[in-house]
């Protein structure tokens, strides 16, 4: 083989922040060989995305500075003029981004955007560019490319948009493709498809890939070699198998230990804490122990949900008539006991969040009953609802949106205590301090504002606020999804500790199967607003019976390169839409018990007869 396609030597990138230069990347060197996939892994702030931008020279000259040497096939990119660099971008190096909606121009058709790249970079005329663009859409396996050509970006799903981005990126046959978190915003089954597509195209085009990600599972799926970054520095640079099997640096070990792996929980009956590993020397601090048995099986259930249905009307036309309905939640029933964690899993749009919000009546359910502590919540008036809400609280996904930026943490935590008259004056202050301590923050931090905290700390504050009224049930809506791996593990440990200490019941809403396996007692899988499978965690994970559960489980990337899934077929399934015409009738289904307290949804006898 010839020399490396990309060779980065002593890369230093700095940004000017408030008059001072801060190093985002320090002394980074690595190579990408022809046809090789190198993954740069790290948590937020590690400098991985800045590295990608530096290679493309997309760091603004006014506020950024790049030093060192970035050579593409021996040609130093940093020495090129801006004019020459523009030719390199797109022609020799192409890039795809995390958010495919914002990387495509919403007012131009996708076909036009691909053809434009072809005309600009390869000098094709309009006809030839269109033919080539159609060929590219076929190449990224977009079904019925001819009709898709004239679609606008909003008419495509997230996965399809990412395919279009890939087609645009590959239009000029680049030698190097830089993919910056290309699957992070996608659902797990779609992610699996896109990863497969990138691998296949790489083989077909003999192209090198620089893959930026925070997800160790994705790394294991795709990378030949792994560069681990931490705070702007390279910690490790080795073949994928070596990084996963014999990591050298303590941080890599900590990172790997914090990643929940599907199947880790075989043989464990109850949720398991994550091990704490010192990122400096890699020492394991205490072996993780199975949580004590917190489930109050003898008591009547805390929460009983029966036939919960939530639909949203879609209005349209001149008179704003009801034209259809989003069947967000359809006939959902389950029980939850004190001290128990029930996980609701599913992909975006499956209704798991709406289920959580309907139970708290943040969204008004259309039908069904929610009984909490024996009381029907759905029929309650405003003042009664107020009493019930003390006992059920919610934690949200985005730690940046879930705290009021203009309220200090102390006053945000004190407010519910004061409003409900639980304490006054210094007693309220003491309660705030106790809450902060409980979630592992220093009580002195109460004077600070949310923007002075990291994402993980903010999520702890959000948990503290939810605990302010000493609730019995906490609905955690993707509560750890936006957090970095190591922070995620800490917050999950905190949640497990609080459950053991306070006997909390969690409704744990998540799309992350591996996290769910780790923390839950029971699991409910949702698909198109319905629970398609529900049962004890071990039964659902070791013996999934519903085809959708199986599909979901095989799509999860496993952080172990040796178990890299053998080439799956290049599926192009889409998530179906829950929008229905008025008066739509579901095919009648029923829950069937397949093993003790393990149910799956099947069409009824009558329903099967009807379709047959």
């Amino acid at each position: 083989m010839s020399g490396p396609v990309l060779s980065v030597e002593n890369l230093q990138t700095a940004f000017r922040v408030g008059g001072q230069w801060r190093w985002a990347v320090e002394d980074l060197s690595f190579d990408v060989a022809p046809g090789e996939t190198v993954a740069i892994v790290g948590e937020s702030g590690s400098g991985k995305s800045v590295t990608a931008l530096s290679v493309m020279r997309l760091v603004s000259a006014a506020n950024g500075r790049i030093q060192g040497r970035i050579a593409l096939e021996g040609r130093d990119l940093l020495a090129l003029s801006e004019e020459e660099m523009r030719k390199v971008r797109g022609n020799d190096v192409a890039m795809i981004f995390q958010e495919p909606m914002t990387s495509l121009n919403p007012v131009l058709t996708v076909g036009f955007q691909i053809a434009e790249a072809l005309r600009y970079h390869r000098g094709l005329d309009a006809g030839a560019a269109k033919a080539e663009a159609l060929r590219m859409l076929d190449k990224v396996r977009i079904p019925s490319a001819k009709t898709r050509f004239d679609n606008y970006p909003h008419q495509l799903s997230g996965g399809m948009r990412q395919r279009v981005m890939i087609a645009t990126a590959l239009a000029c046959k680049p030698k190097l493709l830089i993919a910056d978190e290309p699957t992070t915003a996608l659902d797990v089954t779609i992610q699996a498809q896109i990863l497969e597509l990138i691998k296949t195209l790489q083989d077909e085009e003999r192209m090198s890939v620089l893959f930026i990600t925070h997800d160790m599972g994705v790394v294991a799926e795709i990378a030949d070699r792994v560069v681990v970054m931490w705070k702007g520095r390279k910690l490790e640079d080795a073949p994928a198998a070596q990084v996963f099997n014999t990591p050298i640096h303590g941080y890599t070990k900590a990172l790997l230990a914090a990643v929940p792996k599907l199947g880790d929980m075989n043989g464990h009956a109850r949720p398991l804490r994550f091990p704490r590993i010192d990122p400096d020397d890699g020492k394991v601090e205490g072996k993780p122990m199975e949580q004590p048995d917190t489930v109050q099986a003898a008591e009547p259930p805390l929460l009983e949900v029966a036939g919960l249905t939530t639909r949203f009307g879609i209005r349209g036309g001149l008179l704003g008539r009801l034209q259809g309905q989003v069947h967000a939640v359809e006939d959902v029933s389950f029980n939850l006991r004190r001290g128990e964690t029930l996980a609701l899993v599913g992909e975006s749009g499956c209704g798991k969040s709406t289920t959580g919000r309907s139970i708290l009546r943040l969204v008004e359910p259309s039908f069904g009953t929610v009984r909490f502590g024996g009381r029907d919540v759905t029929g309650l008036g405003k003042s009664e609802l107020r009493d019930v809400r003390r006992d059920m609280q919610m934690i949200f996904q985005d730690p940046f949106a879930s705290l009021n930026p203009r309220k200090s943490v102390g006053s945000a935590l004190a407010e519910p205590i004061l409003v409900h008259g639980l304490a006054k004056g210094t007693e309220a202050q003491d309660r705030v301090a106790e809450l902060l301590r409980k979630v592992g923050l220093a009580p002195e931090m109460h004077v600070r504002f949310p923007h002075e905290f990291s994402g993980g700390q903010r999520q702890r504050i959000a948990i503290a606020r939810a605990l302010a009224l000493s609730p019995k049930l906490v609905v955690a809506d993707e509560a750890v999804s936006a957090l970095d791996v190591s922070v995620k593990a800490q917050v999950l440990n905190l949640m497990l500790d609080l459950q053991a200490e306070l006997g909390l019941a969690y409704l744990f809403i998540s799309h992350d199967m591996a996290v769910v396996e780790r923390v839950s007692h029971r699991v409910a899988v949702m698909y198109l607003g319905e629970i398609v499978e529900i049962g004890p965690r071990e039964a659902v994970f070791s013996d999934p019976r519903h085809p959708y559960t199986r599909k979901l489980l095989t799509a999860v990337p496993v952080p172990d390169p040796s178990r890299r899934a053998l080439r799956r077929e290049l599926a192009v399934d889409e998530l179906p839409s829950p929008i229905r015409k008025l008066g739509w009738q579901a095919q009648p289904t029923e829950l069937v018990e397949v093993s003790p307290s393990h149910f799956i949804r099947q069409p009824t006898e009558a329903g099967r007869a009807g379709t047959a």
Partner: protein
Amino acid sequence: MSTSVHDAAPVAPPRLRWLKATIGAFNANKTSWAGLAIVLAVILAAVLAPIIAPHDPLEQNILSRLQPPYDDFYLGTDYFGRDILSRLLYGARISLVIGIASTVIAMVVGSLIGLLAGYYGGRFDIIVMQAMDILLAFPSLILGLILVAMLGPSMENITIAIALTSIPSFARIARAPTITVKERDYIGAGRALAFSDARIMAGHILPNIFPEILVMASLWLANAIRTEASLAFIGLGVKPPIATWGGMIREGFENILDSYWLVLAPSLAILVVVFALNVLGDGLRDAIDPKLKGER
């Protein structure tokens, strides 16, 4: 637990740090300081008018009518021999009082309407905002004219009329961010904590949209001062002989060919104040916006 590096650092009182950051951002554009300085100087001059004015603004000196600027009358005299500088200083009081009062009224009422419409949405939102749109469709001068003509030209009525013309703009300005903010998770968390609607609106939404409203207010203050002058110019201002800038231009207009200073001084005064307020408003917006973006 996760303690980061800056945890040990001493913490300044939060309000002070917020102020510091805002002044820092305001500082980025030096012209905003000029705007602020001019506005403060005009306010000071208006407040101190009885002390610093060289003459009584109503005193008529028939002997020194239509004098060009000279020693005793720094900006000359008008048709009745009244000192223009003194009238200008006293006129500033009328302009500022009407401008500020009408803007404050419009800000309070308009923001409340926008906040309620944005928060409750639905039919209430549609009806209220359509009414606002109808008001907005009138040019503010014409609307002010109709209102003053109906109510009669007194200082209170002019203030109310100008306030009514700018209420729709404040309603619009307050409604849009209310709709974005109410979708934030912390509002959902507040509802889960059983906070009342009033508490959520006053304690959680208003502080987040207030900076945008404040910027709007500084720009609309300029507009109100201009509208007041325009109304006075067409004869619907505060009754003479009380000095107002618009009234001075109107009175001086008849002699504009031979005594241009009659019109020039009040015109320049309006120009400078409106310009300064616009510059100040831009500076405020720059000071407040980037931080809002960072926090969202």
